[in-house]
């Protein structure tokens, strides 16, 4: 293998690892949209708050990582519920645009609150995880860990949705909202549970991302738009579609970033997205009516 190939392979592998985390992100967003029919524009900002929580728990309060992660997941889950109860629930009957705008307002609010509370400096968890050298490639242990945890998280969610009554109700409500009462399901409770789940997934993503990236109030802008693109391309509410799209985008970002600055990776991803809209509109029409 020439050196060129090694770098490419490394980028491909990193792409897969990144894809795992992006798939986790898109799962949370898809869950909320599929069930409640609302897009949390501020989803990335919830993750940002989770990252700050991890930072403070770990760096300032010296909590052990696993405990910090658990607290982080629960905290962001609670934030998800708060978001739903305070902002979304009053707007459930309103035009979808209003719901989008309201979560946009929350985005603003959270970014600013973070700026005021924590300042704009980049903060790092200060955790130096080893870098593994495999067949001439450098694979970061943090990335492997993130990938593994993301997969486990997704499997757990999958099992929850498949096996439990509540999970089945969540799948059902996404397919036919109106008749849920006939089976004794209180839709509002399901919405709250879904919001908690969406928030919890964001919290998990935060734990994984904070291992690799610095946190600052605007870190959400780095992966928010990409998550939206992934969900739109995979079909909002379509878990399988989002899963596949996540890896595709991750590869584009990873390989694109190999040859040029990281930002170009995002640009390619967007260009790919536009191109896909021309080529495979069916993937985008998997929406709810």
């Amino acid at each position, binding site marked *: 293998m020439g050196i060129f190939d090694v770098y490419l392979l490394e980028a491909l592998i990193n792409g897969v690892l990144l894809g795992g985390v992006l798939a986790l992100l898109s799962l949370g967003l898809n869950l909320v949209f599929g069930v409640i029919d609302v897009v949390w524009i501020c989803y990335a900002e919830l993750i940002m708050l989770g990252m700050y929580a991890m930072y403070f728990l770990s760096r300032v309060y010296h909590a052990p990582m696993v405990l910090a992660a658990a607290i982080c997941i629960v905290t962001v889950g609670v934030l998800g519920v708060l978001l739903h109860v305070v902002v979304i629930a009053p*707007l459930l009957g309103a035009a979808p645009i209003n719901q*989008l705008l309201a979560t946009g307002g929350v985005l603003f609010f959270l*970014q600013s609150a973070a700026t005021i509370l924590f300042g704009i400096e980049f903060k790092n968890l200060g955790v130096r995880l080893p870098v593994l050298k495999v067949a001439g490639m450098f694979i970061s242990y943090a990335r492997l860990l993130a990938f593994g945890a993301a997969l486990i998280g997704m499997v757990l969610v999958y099992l929850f949705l498949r096996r439990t009554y509540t999970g089945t109700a969540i799948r059902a409500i996404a397919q036919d909202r109106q008749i849920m009462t006939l089976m004794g399901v209180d839709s509002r409770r399901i919405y709250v549970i879904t919001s908690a789940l969406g928030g919890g997934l964001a919290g998990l993503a935060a734990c994984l991302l904070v291992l690799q990236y610095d946190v600052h109030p605007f870190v959400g802008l780095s992966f928010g*738009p990409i998550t939206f*693109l992934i969900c739109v391309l995979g079909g909002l509410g379509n878990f399988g579609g989002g899963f596949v799209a996540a890896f595709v985008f991750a590869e584009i970002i990873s390989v694109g970033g190999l040859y040029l600055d990281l930002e*170009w990776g995002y640009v390619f991803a*967007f260009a790919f997205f536009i191109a896909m*809209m021309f080529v495979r509109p069916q993937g*985008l029409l998997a929406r709810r009516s």
Partner: protein
Amino acid sequence: MRRGPAVLGAAALVALPFVYAAPYPLHIAILILIWSFAYTSWSAMGRFGLTSLGHGGFMGTGAYVTALLWNRGGVSPWLGIPVALLAGALLAVLVAYPCFRYRITGHYFALVTLALGGIVLQVITATRDYTGGSLGYTPERYQGGSSLYALQFGGKTTWYLIALAVWAAGLYVWYRVDGSMLRYALEAISEDEDAAAATGVHVTAEKLKITVVSAAMTALAGALYCQYQMFISPDTVSGISVSLQMVFAAVVGGLYVALGPTVGAVITILMAEVLRISVGTRAVGWDNLVYGALLVVFIVFLPKGILGTVLAHRQR
């Protein structure tokens, strides 16, 4: 609007800088006018349910293309601005055409525009060797900063009149759209796309028309802002803050009313200034905090915005 008061009001606006020439209030007035124009441009689409969360991308395009053509190519803004408008329009077509063609609307469309705004920001940052990235970019001063050729003026009065003219042009476009078939077509489309198509409305074409108009106008706002402030950075002219700010101002002022976005601009600019004066540099973040909270409150309780609600009350 009745003739008498409108003419009087217009005359007062034009006469203002000659009567009261203090630089700081004029500066605020200019900012209000430029941003009103930007917000009105957004509302041109927004009022028909085509909610874009990425108009910052068009504004940034307008600003940076103008500045880059001048600094790098020596191209006078008189030519540069039309090119910038064209760039904005092309960008709009490139993204909006597939969206409309493949019936990507509502949530989906908003998210795509959101991503668009983000990508423009990324491009500006990625080409930092040319654009200065997050540090910002300054158009070069020509002849000491006062030149018709370079569209740079030292005096606030001149800028005030330019901004006023552009703002008025924006309102004119609004009124023209209001009275045109395009408006009815778009309203029909926003009610029920299929029904509209069935009656012969070319849905994609009509939506594209208003999108191009809106994008070009927003790009113009960006270009003007660049020429006035003589400094642009990705966060001030593009990016999600700017995009959401546009939405906020239009919603708060009144989305469906011609002067609504202007009211919104008055509110946002004044609020930012008040915060800046009272809180000082620690105001960084406070204005957006208030915007964000107010946006949520307004959406929940006053979706028609201030002006819209007031007008609706008066009609009863």
